[in-house]
């Protein structure tokens, strides 16, 4: 009994202390929502509100919610940006280069040694990777007027590494081929 009385006294004292500290910090303190918040007042002092279900403005909210998956591109006559949808499935060429989840051609530039070594990497290759390597090499060599270029094939991970920065050439080449 005595213990509970003590606890009650303690709680009321605690409340008083809280009020006291709140009054102390009547100036809004930064970075503290508790100290800068106003005390709760009676309900009549607040403006009247209504909760609208199925409001006509809900379309503005829906527009702000992000799509859960990457949207599929819509077929158009032409694409001004130079991006093209994939048309080839690889049955004719014997190899296939899959697009990324963002519908892009998987050709990347790897730089090492402070940009001194530039290697173009073609990823997501399936099928006859050696035939693709031959085609890509000829495309690169054609773009640099017959100058030879070194390549490396990793058939396990389906990647082709080409020495030098040929990202634009290879991206355009693969897009032209329909990959």
């Amino acid at each position, binding site marked *: 009994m005595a213990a509970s009385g003590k606890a009650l006294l303690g709680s009321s004292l605690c409340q008083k202390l809280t009020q006291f500290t709140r009054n102390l910090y009547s100036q809004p303190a930064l970075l503290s929502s508790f100290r800068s918040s106003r005390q709760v007042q009676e309900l009549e002092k607040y403006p009247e509100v209504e*909760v*609208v279900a199925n409001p006509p403005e809900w379309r503005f*909210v829906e527009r*702000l*919610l992000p799509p859960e998956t990457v*949207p599929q591109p819509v077929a158009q006559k032409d694409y*001004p940006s130079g*991006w093209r949808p994939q048309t080839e499935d690889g049955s004719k060429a014997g190899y296939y280069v899959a697009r990324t989840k963002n519908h892009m051609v998987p050709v990347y530039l790897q730089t090492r040694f402070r940009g001194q070594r530039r290697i173009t990497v073609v990823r997501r290759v399936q099928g006859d990777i050696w035939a693709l390597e031959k085609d890509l090499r000829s495309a690169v060599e054609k773009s640099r007027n017959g100058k030879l270029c070194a390549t490396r094939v990793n058939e*396990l991970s389906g990647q082709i590494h080409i020495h030098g920065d040929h990202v634009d050439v290879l991206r355009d080449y693969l897009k032209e081929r329909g990959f």
Partner: protein
Amino acid sequence: MAHLRETSDKALKLLRTLPRVQIGNLRPNPNSKQNDKRGRAQHGGDKHGAGNKGSGQRQNFMRLGYETGNQPFYLRFPYEPYYKGHHMKRQYPPISLLQLQVLIDTNRIDTSQPIDISTLCNSGLLKLKPAELEYGFQLTDDGLDNFKAKINIEVQHASEAVIAAIEKNGGVIRTAYYDPRSLHMLVNPKKWFQKGVPIPSRMLPPQDAVDYYTNPKNRGYLANPEEISQDRLVLAQKYGYELPKIEKDSAYEMLTTAKDPRQVFYGLEPGWLVNIVDKTITKRKD
């Protein structure tokens, strides 16, 4: 040398099963690496490669930038005025017209709706960090000739050429200021709605940004609309294109949609409380 032959035999056997040899699956030959144990006493326990005397032996290296009595380089020049206030400057990460066109072509952005920061961030490909003083996007002129979309876009900074490129296609561009709190809401609206807090109103621009956003040449959101429509004509004459008439456009309503200077989201007023679980909006009764 019997063990070595065994090793090489083993290696050859392994090679036949491995698909390839490359730098990733090679390792040094056995016994080719020196043991890095530190010798003691007579067995190499002399200086341990640290040399004789000085900071090499005692590891009391000089502090960074100290030049043994010279005036150090980092103290040699008294004043670097171009860094003044760099930690306070507003950043506007760039997006190019080419990037925007790619986003439109790959169906990441819906051009039938007005485009703002939340549209760009919701594409999942562009990021904005208001906490790192990034106050919005600036639209740059890369890919200007290939830009063909008719859009209503709101960015935070745009050059004259970009404005001309968008207006040439019959679109509308507007530059607008958002305070960090509003930016935080726009970057991830879904997460912000989940907080269950009424929508605050947008703050007005700081003093050094007022000139930019009240200038009709920048298509500022605080500029006089009549002056803006006049400047659209002037820009069309300067760049030599015929200004498409927005009034006669079928998408007139979308193209002329604009936020109030105090509004953060399109169509949602400050003070409203959006509940995305129950799909309700709490409004003030007036």
